């Protein structure tokens, strides 16, 4: 039986990751701890003191944690789709090496997405464990919330990849993080309900993949009713994944096999 070509790409990413995983595991554990301590507990004490009925009925920490889970998945996806892709295309040229083998451009892109999905799963899983440590919710509920987090991470990985492959240099990537990723992180309902946003900004939050992920994670972890039906959010994120992946293939072909 032959191994699907995209899986061979995935395998190769895994082999590489085995060498470099140490640093990223520490940060994927430390990040949620730091955020939950500083924002959830620190800032949360102030928030909870002013809102005896809680934020959407729960403590600020409980409100924040599922949103941060989705946001971390989003950032992991953006990370997988940015400098790493730029490096493979431009700096290390390892994608050229792969394309000299039976692997073709679509296999390469799908393989990279499989890998991005795996990384998002890994990071989300660690985050979920930290949430359990902070007694945000029981284990099974927290683990279920990894599902929407995976969708958000993949949507972002696919979209970011199709952006990265179109740009010439990494200055644009820094801009992308500054003007897209960070604002999305701050204003998609992770830290406060988007009802607090000015009216004109709320539709912007609706179209971000992160907002859909945040609402779904929160629904699973604290039992809120999501503002849009889950099937719509899921289809929306799947569309991002499909379009991002598809739109990455053309420019990849142009750059790597001109």
């Amino acid at each position: 039986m032959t191994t699907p070509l995209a899986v061979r790409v995935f395998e190769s990413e895994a082999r590489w990751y085995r060498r470099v995983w140490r640093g990223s595991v520490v940060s994927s554990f430390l990040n949620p701890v730091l955020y939950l301590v500083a924002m959830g507990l620190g800032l949360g004490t102030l928030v909870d003191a002013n809102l005896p009925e809680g934020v959407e009925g729960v403590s600020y920490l409980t409100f924040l944690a599922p949103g941060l889970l989705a946001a971390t998945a989003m950032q992991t996806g953006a990370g997988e789709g940015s400098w790493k892709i730029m490096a493979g295309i431009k700096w290390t040229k390892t994608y050229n090496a792969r394309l000299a083998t039976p692997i073709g451009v679509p296999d390469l892109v799908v393989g990279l997405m499989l890998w991005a999905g795996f990384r998002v799963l890994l990071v989300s899983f660690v985050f979920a464990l930290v949430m359990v440590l902070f007694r945000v919710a029981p284990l099974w509920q927290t683990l279920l919330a990894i599902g929407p987090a995976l969708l958000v991470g993949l949507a972002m990985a696919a979209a970011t990849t199709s952006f990265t492959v179109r740009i010439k240099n990494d200055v644009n990537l820094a801009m992308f993080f500054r003007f897209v990723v960070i604002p999305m992180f701050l204003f998609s309902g992770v830290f406060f309900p988007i009802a607090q946003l000015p009216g004109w900004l709320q539709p912007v939050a609706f179209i971000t993949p992160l907002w859909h992920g945040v609402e779904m994670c929160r629904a699973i972890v604290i039992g809120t009713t999501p503002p849009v039906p889950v099937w719509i959010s899921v289809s929306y994120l799947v569309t991002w994944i499909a379009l991002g992946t598809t739109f990455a293939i053309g420019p990849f072909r142009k750059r790597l096999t001109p």
Partner: protein
Amino acid sequence: MPKLIEAHDLTKKFGDFTAVDSIDFYVDEGESFGFLGPNGAGKTSTMKMIGATSPISSGTLSVLGLDPTTQGPELRARLGVVPQEDNLDQELTVTENLMMYGRYFDMSRAAIRERVDELLVFAQLQEKADAKVEALSGGMKRRLTIARGLINDPELLILDEPTTGLDPQARHILWDRLYRLKQQGVTLIITTHYMDEAEQLCDRLVVMDKAEIVAEGSPQDLIEEHSPREVVELRFPVGVLETVSERLNGLARRAEILADRALLYTDDAEKTIHEINEAGLDHEAVLVRRSSLEDVFLRLTGRSLAE
């Protein structure tokens, strides 16, 4: 017997720019075939089309009896490619790089391990098996890249400027390795802008210039066909060369005036030197040598490869 590679009117265009302009060539099985030419002549573009990593713009191309346009994956499975720039995984070890590459061809781990042992011996990298690539010298990296290209036991190995940027010692080791491959019957395609490399390694070669093939033959044939037997190299004091260039033209079958010296192509060097002395040309140094591929190249393209 069918040719291993056959190209007719093969053309590669990038927008308005024609990188390869309807070239014809063939390569036989077991042959070591060279593409010689300056940078930008279209050598690498041709290699990429043969390696099915760049679609052809027009013409026909058949490699190992396959069509690179429609049978890319099958074709690439049977090729080995050594690109111009090393694209090894710097953070991985020598062995890991080879293992990883073998998996792209879906070889079993056991089969790869066996092959890796052979290749490490071939590439003289046994002692570096567990060293990270970033710690290797340029010559070692090249040998590893060649070993990597051989992992799938390819029927055809494509080498794009295999020794560019290496020191003389490393080049000679590499030539020796490539010569061994040739003896084992592996068909090699080599691009180079080094004459000595082409003379050492190629049974037959084409000279490319400005997207076209300007000559074809064995190194010896090319020299005989395009250049008189001997070359007299003359050096002059600063400023003198320009003033005597007119007079040099009459002294040999052909004179090539370079920036620092004049080359006189002749069938009888002794006679030419005698005439130079008779003419009272005030040269600084004189050297007689046999014609080389470099001279063929100068003749065909009118410029030095050193530029």
